[in-house]
Each structure stands twice: as structure tokens, then as C-alpha cells.
């Protein structure tokens, strides 16, 4: 068939084009460099997005010339990236288990310090239209419930509560990080989601939090560590101090985190 070559070439070209379209172009996001310009890369659990955003701003004000570049995501994902050589200076994780991935690989500089705790809460649409009042309600068959995948800390915590209470949730989706769960609730596609109390606080009026006593069985601790051979080790240590210090703690507690 004589049509073959041009068609195949065009299709291949378009495939290439599509591939290029997906490539991020944000490598030059940092400010043009004066000599004392320094960049601190902070890997942090998705649930820390808002509070670390605030701490980061404060830190940049206190340390002129420093640009803090945060990377937020599921803790286990971030841990895996660090193990695979991602150039992080600081890692703030949402669970001991994910931090252990990094310490076991010998990649933490010193022992991780716990700087906050968090508990699960049920996120519903504003006004709680489905009338959810307890953890057991989440097992109702007509509810669309979204949780984190068991591999991520928020999913592991949800599993723990399920085991402790004997409530068997049949989720419609298991998301890779807690902000994805929240997103499914804020967009109205799910009736309820298991997220952290801090996520509901940061989502404002779009969602409502329903607390449940069983959450206390699965409190998560947030450890933070400087990464071994960090490009900005000294700066990293002072960032960790900022998080564990008075000012950082004030921001974290205002966001709903518990004290370690």
C-alpha cells in the first residue's frame, strides 16, 4: 500500500510531538543568580503544602538570597525519589514508615526529628448533605467514598482504623496522595473522603470535617530530616530548626497539626 510511509511517519511525528508536549519546562524557575543566591530543595508530604508554604516564605524573608523550592507529594513517592538520587536537601514525611525508607538507605543525616502529628477526619461536601456522623457510616453502600492507597501514610492510617473498628469501607477510588482525595470531595465527585484534619482546615468552606473518636487509634507522626550530602546541608539544618522552632510550630498548630 503506497499510503503507508507518509501515514506512519506522520503518526510517529505526532507521537513525538505529544511526548514533547508533556515535558515540563520549569527548570529555569529560579531567580537569575547573583553569587550568594542559594536554592534549598525541600521534599514534603502533600498534607504539609499550606503550612510549609508559609514557613518557606518566612524562611526566605529571614535568609535573603535563599530560594526554597518545595516539592510536595505522597510521602512514599518522595521517599522513593530520594532513594533514587533526587537532589533533596530536606525531607519532611507524613509517617515513620516512609522516613524509614530513607534512613534505611543511609540517606538521612542524623536522626529524624518528629515535628508534628495529624489525625484523620472525614471530609464531606459543605453542609454534609449525606448526613455522615460516624466512621461506620462510611461503609454505607450508597456512599461514594475515596481514600488514600494503603501504600501512602494516609491510606495506611485509614486501614489501621478499619482494622481497629471492623468497619469495611468499599472505596470507589484509592488515590496516591491525600490532596487527590480532598480534590475528589471538593469537586463533588465523591461524597466523602478520609483525609487529615489539616486538609479540611486548609480547604476552607468547600468541605466540612466530621471527626470520629477512632481516629485517635491512627495518629500519624511527621518526621523531618536533612538528607545526607545535601547540596545545602547548612541551610537545610537551619530550615529544620525553623520548622521545629517556635515560629514553625505556631504555623503548624494554626493549620491544625498536633504537637509532637
Amino acid at each position, binding site marked *: *500500500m*503506497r*499510503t*503507508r*510511509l*507518509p*501515514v*506512519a*511517519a*506522520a*503518526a510517529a511525528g*505526532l*507521537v513525538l*510531538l*505529544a511526548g514533547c*508536549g*508533556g515535558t515540563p519546562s520549569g527548570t529555569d524557575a529560579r531567580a537569575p543568580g547573583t553569587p550568594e543566591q542559594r536554592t534549598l530543595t525541600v521534599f514534603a508530604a502533600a498534607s504539609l503544602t499550606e503550612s510549609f508554604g508559609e514557613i518557606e516564605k518566612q524562611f526566605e524573608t529571614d535568609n535573603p538570597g535563599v530560594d526554597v523550592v518545595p516539592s510536595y507529594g*505522597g510521602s*512514599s*513517592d518522595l*521517599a*522513593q525519589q530520594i532513594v533514587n538520587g533526587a537532589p533533596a536537601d530536606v525531607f519532611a514525611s507524613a509517617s515513620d514508615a516512609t522516613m524509614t525508607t530513607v534512613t534505611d538507605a543511609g540517606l538521612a543525616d542524623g536522626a529524624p526529628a518528629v515535628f508534628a502529628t495529624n489525625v484523620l477526619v472525614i471530609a464531606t461536601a459543605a453542609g454534609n448533605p449525606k448526613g455522615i456522623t460516624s466512621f461506620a457510616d462510611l461503609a454505607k453502600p450508597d456512599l*461514594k467514598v*475515596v481514600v488514600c*492507597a494503603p*501504600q*501512602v501514610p494516609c491510606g495506611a492510617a485509614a486501614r489501621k482504623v478499619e482494622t481497629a473498628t471492623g468497619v469495611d469501607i468499599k*472505596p*470507589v*477510588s*484509592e*488515590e*496516591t496522595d491525600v490532596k487527590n482525595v480532598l480534590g*475528589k470531595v471538593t*469537586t*463533588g*465527585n*465523591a461524597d466523602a473522603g478520609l483525609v487529615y484534619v489539616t486538609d479540611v482546615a486548609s480547604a476552607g468552606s468547600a468541605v466540612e470535617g466530621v471527626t470520629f473518636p477512632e481516629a485517635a487509634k491512627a495518629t500519624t507522626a511527621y518526621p523531618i530530616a536533612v538528607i545526607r550530602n545535601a547540596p545545602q546541608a547548612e541551610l537545610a539544618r537551619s530550615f529544620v530548626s525553623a520548622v521545629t522552632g517556635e515560629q514553625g510550630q505556631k504555623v503548624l498548630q494554626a493549620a491544625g497539626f498536633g504537637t509532637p
Partner: protein
Amino acid sequence: MSTTPGEAPARRRPDDHETGVGVPRLLWVPAGLAFALIALPVLGLALKADWPRLPEQLVSAAALDALRLSLLTASISTVLCIVFGGPLAVVLARGRLRGLRLLRSVVLLPLVLPPVVGGLALLYLLGRTGLVGRGLDVAFGVTIPFTTAAVVLAQTFVALPFLVVSLEGALRTAGRRYEAVAATLGASPALAFRRVTVPLVLPGLASGAVLAFARCLGEFGATVAFAGSLQGTTQTLPLLVYQLRETDVEAAVALSLLLVVVAVAVIAVAAPRTTADGRL
């Protein structure tokens, strides 16, 4: 892409075999690097694999569910691409409408858009609070996100242009001369289309379908944004690989190799037809 119908392929073919003009040596280096960029990562994957444990990693319940779901949804999506994309290609190639060029640009969008953007777009159209989704929910109690149907929709969305572009190209290159001859012999447009046009573009349709199927199998971004991820319902192989790579790297590698095997199989199915006419 625009080979004119008048250009005779017979003129080019002897050239390919007889000129004896070799490939300039300088080209071998970048060519080799390009090949290495494609081949070496796959090799790296194979070396990382825990081969003795591979079988048990591949037959885990989650893996089997994901494989079954991937094959099922990619097959349905490919059929949908043919059923709806085929006629669209005919309209684009043969239609005499104003604004056809604009229409074609829109059809190409999913090729250029990051799939996750496509997923969001689908969510805001068909999600429970979306433009159409809200109506479906209120009127019929039907919600699309988190269902296997959502996976199929996401795959069809991203794969449609592959089929349309292939088929439209085939239709254009085939030209209208044979149909015109059929018409002078008394064939109705429908008969000419069925007996002349369709057989003529069948290879183009086949290669388009293979490309679409491959694209469906690899779909990730639109699916995760629109359909969510749940074992047995919406968690296709790429989604499972993405989730496992965080905690169970070896299983993720095993499943990646499975996808490589499926990809090779797809290429093998597609390749004999491309070599049969001596062109690729």
C-alpha cells in the same frame, strides 16, 4: 505527509535498492545514540528485575485484575475509536464543509495536550458536578467517574486522533479516482464507498487501530484524573505500576516488563504488514 496521489511509488522503489549511495558516516553516531536512548532503559528494566520471583509477582491478584482490565478497556476503546473515529476521518478527508480545518485542529488536540489535562476536562464535563454529568446524575442517577466506563472514555479520548489521522491520511492518498470510476460504472456512492474505498484504506485503518490500541494500553494521566484508581474497576496496568513503584519496586518492575512484552506483541502484530510492502 502530503504525498500527492499522482506520485507513483514504483519510481522510488528501484532507487532504494540500486543507487548504492551509503549512509553518511557522520549520521551513525547520533543514530546510535538515539537507538541507545530507546533500547538501554528497557534493558535497565530487565536487569533490575528479580527474574526468579517474576512469575509470582505477575500473578498477584492485583496484577491479574489490572492486566484483565487493561486488555478489556483498551479493546473496547479501540472498537469505539473505529466506530466513531472512522466516520470522522471520512468526513475530514472527504467532507466539503466550511471550517473543516478548524475541526481537524480540534480533533488533534488530545495528541498535543498532556493527558492529565484531558482527564480534568472530562471530569468537568462528565463528573458528578460537571456540565453534562450533573444532568446524568439528576435525571438517571448515573455517575461516570470511578467506573470502568470512565476508563474507556479517557482512553478513547486520547486514542481517537491516532486512528483519525492514520485513516484520514490513507483516504487522502488513496484519492477519489477509483471511486469516480466506480460511479461511472453505475455504483451508488454507498456501494462505491463499501466496495472500493473501504478495501483501499483497510491497511491504514488497521495501522491506526494498532496505534490507538497501544495508546489505550499506555494511558495514565487522563485515567487517573477522571476515573480514579481502584483494583478491578479502574486500576489499569500503568496505574498499578505507578502505585507499586512507591513501595514495591520489584513488583512494579515485573509489571513494567509485562507491559514491554505486550508492547512488543503489538509491534509484532503491526510490523509484518508494514514490511510486506517493502516500505519500512
